[in-house]
């Protein structure tokens, strides 16, 4: 197991960057929940981050090939759990996403399914060993991923299910899917759009509407976008200062410590802070991509790129939502948003990346 040479071989830049982002997140959680019912959230988040680092360490120790090998098992397990969640899950804000654990803690299963999907895709595509992806494989892999997508959508949790699709997308892209298929997807999307539209829940439709026109109903669904934009705009160049953001502190902003944490961050730290935070994310992504480039084999490359794509997608959608350029989907900001499941799953993924990196010294 202890195959890495020493502590020195760990991907320290990756670790430092992720911890730096977490610290920004904790600071912001502290500020956003300052003197509220959630005032101890930053504390809990520290615990989660420490736990997450632990997970990361563990994940770096286990050879990812071992995990890949068990991917089908994980896959089955996660499908079962998702079904269980649908049946017995705790209902919060109208959706069943959580499995209640001891001590009032809740686990969001769908967060960890991301990890499984990355592994499944990597495993499947590695076994192909071809330069081009065939239609048969495409369908098979697509079917594999679409099952959890459908289950999560049922919760309903559009955002998380979309992240699965993002993983699928990058996997297919890297495997060398012909441009004809991409074109086919586009045509299919256009054809299926009306169908999908009928499947979407009313509130989801409303979110899309308000994404197009936030002022449609400023008291209703568009409220969040408008308030978020106001908060970000209030930040200006230098920001209002920690615990000084009026939008955040006066509770105009919805959930300023989870989904809209970056909005609060933007208000209190301004454009400079935003550039810094986004810069950290960018470097983190680049570091993961570098690990993908230096991966010892295809599987490692797929794993790393899957993680990178997932993180990019989440950052893009969450931050885009904050500035009103993406619809509100309820995707948390990795590493910054408050939430244990999110933190643990992201650190687990980073652990995987680290693992891939360590394996390159093996031969």
């Amino acid at each position, binding site marked *: 197991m202890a195959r890495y040479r020493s502590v020195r071989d760990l991907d320290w830049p990756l670790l430092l960057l992720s911890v730096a982002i977490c610290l920004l997140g904790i600071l912001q959680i502290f500020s956003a929940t300052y003197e509220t019912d959630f005032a101890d959230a930053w504390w809990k988040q520290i615990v989660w981050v420490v736990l997450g680092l632990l997970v990361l360490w563990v994940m770096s120790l286990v*050879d990812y*090939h*071992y995990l*890949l*090998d068990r991917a089908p098992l994980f896959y089955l397990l996660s499908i079962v759990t998702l079904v269980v969640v649908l049946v017995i899950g705790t209902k919060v804000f109208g959706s069943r996403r959580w499995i209640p654990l001891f001590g009032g803690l809740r686990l969001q299963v769908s967060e960890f399914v991301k990890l499984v999907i990355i592994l499944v895709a990597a495993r499947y595509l*590695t076994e192909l*060993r071809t*330069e081009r992806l065939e239609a048969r494989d495409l369908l098979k892999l697509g079917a594999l991923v679409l099952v959890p997508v459908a289950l999560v959508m049922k919760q309903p949790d559009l955002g998380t299910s979309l992240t699965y699709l993002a993983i699928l997308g*990058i996997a297919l*892209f*890297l*495997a*060398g899917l012909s441009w004809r298929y991409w074109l086919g997807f586009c045509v299919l999307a256009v054809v299926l759009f009306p169908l999908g539209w009928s499947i979407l829940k009313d509130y989801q439709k409303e979110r899309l509407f308000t994404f197009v026109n936030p*002022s449609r109903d400023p008291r209703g669904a568009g409220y969040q976008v*408008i308030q978020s*934009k*106001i908060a*970000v*705009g*209030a*930040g*200006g*160049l230098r920001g209002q200062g920690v615990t000084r953001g009026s939008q955040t502190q006066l509770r105009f902003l919805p959930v300023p410590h989870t989904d809209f944490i970056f909005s609060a961050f*933007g208000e209190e730290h*301004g*454009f400079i802070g*935003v*550039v810094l935070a*986004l810069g950290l*994310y*960018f470097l983190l*992504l*680049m570091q993961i*991509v570098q690990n*993908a*480039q230096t*991966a*010892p*084999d*295809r599987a*490692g*490359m797929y794993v790393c*790129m899957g993680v*990178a*794509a997932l993180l*990019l997608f989440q*950052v*893009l959608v969450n*931050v*885009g939502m904050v*500035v*009103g*350029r993406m619809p509100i989907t309820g995707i948390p900001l990795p590493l910054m948003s408050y939430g244990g499941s999110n933190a643990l799953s992201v650190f687990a993924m980073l652990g995987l990346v680290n693992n891939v990196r360590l394996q390159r010294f*093996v*031969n």
Partner: protein
Amino acid sequence: MLPVEREREDLNLKPRPPQDDPRFAAGRIAFFQYITVAAFVFLLSGFWELQIGNPEFYSERAERNRIKALPILAPRGKIVDRDGRIVVDNHSSYSLILSRENLKPEHLKTIADGLNLDYDELVNRIRRFERTRPKYEPVIIKEELTPGELAFVDAYRSVDGFPELELIHAQKRQYPTSGLAAHVIGYVGEVSEAELNTLEFARYRPGDVIGKSGIERYYNNRLMGVDGQRRVLVDNLGRERQVMGMEDATPGQDLHLTLDLDLQAVAELAMEGRQGAVVALDPRNGEVLAMVSRPSYNPNKFAGRIRSRDWKELTDDPQRPLLNRAIQAQLAPGSTFKPIVALAGLETGEIDSDFSVYCNGGATFYGRFFKCHARGGHGRVDLYRGLVQSCDVYFYNAGNRLGIDKIAEYAEMAGFGKPTGIDLPHEASGLVPSTRWKLRTYRDKWYAGETISVSIGQGALTVTPLQLAAAIGGLALGGVWHTPHMVKNPDSLPPPRTAHIDLSHAIQIVNALYGVVNDGGTGIRAWLPGIEVCGKTGTAQLASNEAIRSGKVPDTLKDNAWFFGFAPRQDPELIVVALFEHAEHGPNAAPIVRDVIKAYFDKKARQSAPPVLLSSSGAPASGAAYARRGE
């Protein structure tokens, strides 16, 4: 190498195939990097737009900065005379508005200096808006900018970054520059804070331009339109780039006056350089054909924001040019009141056509001597001669017989003592004294001696020129008093008042008034060939008799001259009242009335004559032109 192989086998993994090169997707990974860069640029641009691009904190407000909402000021309705000739027009001009959202207080000094505004006034003005209106509502700080001032604005708005300045196009009031009918038309101005608290103007907002006096005020709701709005995209230099949306302004309605500019012009010219008023109306329906008050002023000075200096000059003028004397001067009518006394006498039977007195230059009543204006006396006078010669002694006796309350009753029947109800603001009511009035006002009883003065139109009796015109006009028609009005289709017109007076009495008085002009009476100067002009002079004394005797009467206390004239004798179409203040002799007002009446009948002849005839006479077909314009 080896441990790995072993490990793989342990894990039941197939050995790595030779073509398993992780670099096979290097190009695609590079592509992913570019995607990442693009995604972050996309996100950063979003933050730039919100945090940097928007100079203001509130995103919606910021949107207003780039997409500015500029008011489109609705033009007020035009005011035209009865023939459709334009009395009040609009002309296009530029107004400067100040967007308070972008205001930098340190710029105000420069703005005030550059645009010749008073700095303190400007600051107060902005402060006034600051208190009451939301910040995004702009303030108009200067109207009718000259090209130079426009250049100033343009230069500063762009180069030195005065983002608060914005120019809008406005329709400004254009009044006759000669001050013609200034008092009737009135003027517009910005609604004041005090006015906003009144019921009349409660629905307007600060900065709105409303009618302040005259027709402009009375018919403000009709004349005023509804402002529109234009949303334009402006760049960072403040230049308009694109129109995003328009809500057109609804212009105000045009107003059709009953005024006849021909008569008005003649009356204005006749009063030039004089102090007083002229009212001409059609007694058959109450339409006012001309209304002049002198001295006048140039209402165009009010069309913008009047300077406090000009305003002070106007209000401090002892001649009170802002007063519309036609409806606001309350003065003793003098002998022009005598027909009313005569009517009262005839109706009550206190006098009849046979009743006569001997005038030897005065008479004594209740121990006091009242003199007649003719030193030598008129000899024996009956009603006809009494009116024609305007014999005071005759009317002393008539009044004495009637008593004050009978006189008051008939005066009030004719419309004195209360506003006529004309559609102009601030009409004065005049005063008809009576025992009840005396008791109520002075808590004192009426002395019979006071009646003597009232019976020749002096004493406490005061009337306005309009009241006199309406009263005599109704009397000449045989007792039908129409409410005078200025606008062709007034909002509401009360039905005419009628009094059941004996028609023969009215005819008797009218005949006497005909004699005043045509039978060697005091109104000979109003004589017109071919037109049956009836009239009556009046000389109202202002100074006490003692002062007159001492010969030291200042100009401002010289007698007022009155004259009313109507024509034709039967079914009069026109009655004109002229008040010529400090003219000393009543007959001096007669030519004014004569000119107006002449203008009326000349115009009538012009309109009835076939236009061909006029143009064939070689003279320009001015009459035809008028007829055409009148269509």
